């Protein structure tokens, strides 16, 4: 266990050290979320009616959750690249903890997600978002969003090791996550969806997490599902981390 922790730290450090040296990736963390906020706030926002406060206040929690769920893409692409470059072979030939390469990757995502989320929230504050909550609730919201992102990073870790090429990782990940984020209450009120989509949206973990984050940050009435949101996070982790580690054990380079 001590070995797993120290090896995970080494791999996390590796993934963070290389980050500023891959500017194209850094751009995805910083510019992309800003563009999304501006797009929804100013292009679509005028046409979307939301209950209660302004669209900016409705939008920011939704876009934070969407952005953080996509944050795991870096894990899928990074692991796929490591596999092709033979780095996974090297790691697997070392006497290191088996789960450390994946845990190090997903932990690095937490840091990049936090960075990305900070940029999002600051952009939000500029365009009219404001917190209506206690410090405790704001912090609890941050924890919820980051742990949800962490759980999704394990989904992406599994996908990244499953598919052959980074391009495939990209499209499979996109096809899997895109409907989940959009058929939810992230950008539009859940009630506005057609019935079958609304039924899906109601049980969609995205809807649950977004609603709870909205409640925590802006005081919007919540269906009181905070425990369900964290339960989803646990379920995703329990399901996908063993799958990803099993895949890693059999991963073949090139």
């Amino acid at each position, binding site marked *: 266990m001590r*070995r797993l922790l*120290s*090896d995970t730290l*080494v*791999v996390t*450090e*590796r993934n963070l*050290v*290389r980050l500023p*040296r*891959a500017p194209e990736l850094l751009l995805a963390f910083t510019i992309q979320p800003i563009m999304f906020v501006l797009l929804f706030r100013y292009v679509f926002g005028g046409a979307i009616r939301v209950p209660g406060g302004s669209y900016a206040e409705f939008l920011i929690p939704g876009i934070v959750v969407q952005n953080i769920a996509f944050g795991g893409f870096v894990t899928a692409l990074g692991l796929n690249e490591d596999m092709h*470059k*033979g*780095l996974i*072979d*090297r*790691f*697997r*030939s*070392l*006497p*290191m903890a088996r789960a*450390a390469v994946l845990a190090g990757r997903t932990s690095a995502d937490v840091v990049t997600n936090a960075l990305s989320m900070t940029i999002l929230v600051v952009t939000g504050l500029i365009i009219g978002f404001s917190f209506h909550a206690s410090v405790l609730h704001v912090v609890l919201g941050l924890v919820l969003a980051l742990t949800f992102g962490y759980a999704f990073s394990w989904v992406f870790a599994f996908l990244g090791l499953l598919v052959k090429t980074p391009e495939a990782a990209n499209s499979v990940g996109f096809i899997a996550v895109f409907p989940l984020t959009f058929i939810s209450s992230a950008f539009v009120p859940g009630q506005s969806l057609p019935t079958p989509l609304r039924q899906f949206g109601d049980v969609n973990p995205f809807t649950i997490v977004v609603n709870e984050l909205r409640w925590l940050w802006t005081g919007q009435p919540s269906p009181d599902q905070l425990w369900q949101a964290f339960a989803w996070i646990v379920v995703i982790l329990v399901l996908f981390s063993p799958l990803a580690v099993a895949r890693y054990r059999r991963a*073949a*380079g*090139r």
Partner: protein
Amino acid sequence: MSSQLETSGSRVGGASLNSDAAISVRGISKSFGDVHALIDVDLDVARGTVLGLLGPNGAGKTTLVRILATLLQPDSGSAQVAGVDVLRRAAELRERIGLAGQYAAVDENLTGLENLAMVGRLYGSSRAAAKARGQELLQQFDLVDAADRPVKTYSGGMRRRLDLAAALVAKPPVLFLDEPTTGLDPRSRLDLWDVIETLVSEGATVLLTTQYLDEADRLADRIAVIDHGRVIAEGTSDELKDRVGGERLEVHLEDSSQGDAAVEALAPMCAEEPATSDGLVRIGVRQRGGAIIEAVRRLDQAGVGVDDIALRRPTLDDVFLALTGHAAEEEGSE
């Protein structure tokens, strides 16, 4: 071949592993679907020696290395490396092996030193110790000037040297080098050969795969020729060459009309029917030692004038062709 292997071995899985050898492989088979990558492979590599695993692309070389480096499970067979059972004690074995691959397995966005320090820490060293060992290796591999540059700025040869350095971080007694010079320019290849020779002189045991005959010839103490998943021949370079018949003696005559006289004079030395054409006499000689001196003496006594005389040793190309019926690099299309 297995008759040579009757040493003090323990019975494991029906075949007897040679526990004195640094690497001992018995009856290893591996299939991927319908493709038989390895079929009943037996090998031994004595401590402190280099075994060259020679074969074309797709012959099964990399599959064997991956199995011995604990990256892949064989379908059957047993293997021992550095005294550790590969299949049963994989975690322990990883402490004692170094792997350098065909593709330089280093992180392009980290510097040379950061790469080596990372590997050191993953072997369990402290941050300071890992960095010190990294610096030592950079010195040894002539990469000090590039230590703090990201690897993406390195040349192909520098990356391979760094990759090899990464395999040596924990000073493992057994090294697996999977096509270490594939894709390198001739100059970098020679540099890397020097490095590998130094490692071996310091006592490492090396399993080296290659599709280059000259590389096996230069670096390997013994060579195993592998084709379509089977080891089809094993021995020293000289032993393999002897199998295709000994040396070829080529004599250029001063006077091309003396061909018959030359053949008659050299007949007692010949292993096979001599060939003459246009003042050039080619014979396969029975023994290597003293062949030129004896030939010159015999021709001189017979009064045959010699313009040039040379002993050409069969190359591993001749060996490969004789053993497999096709050239070694025929399928090497990368």
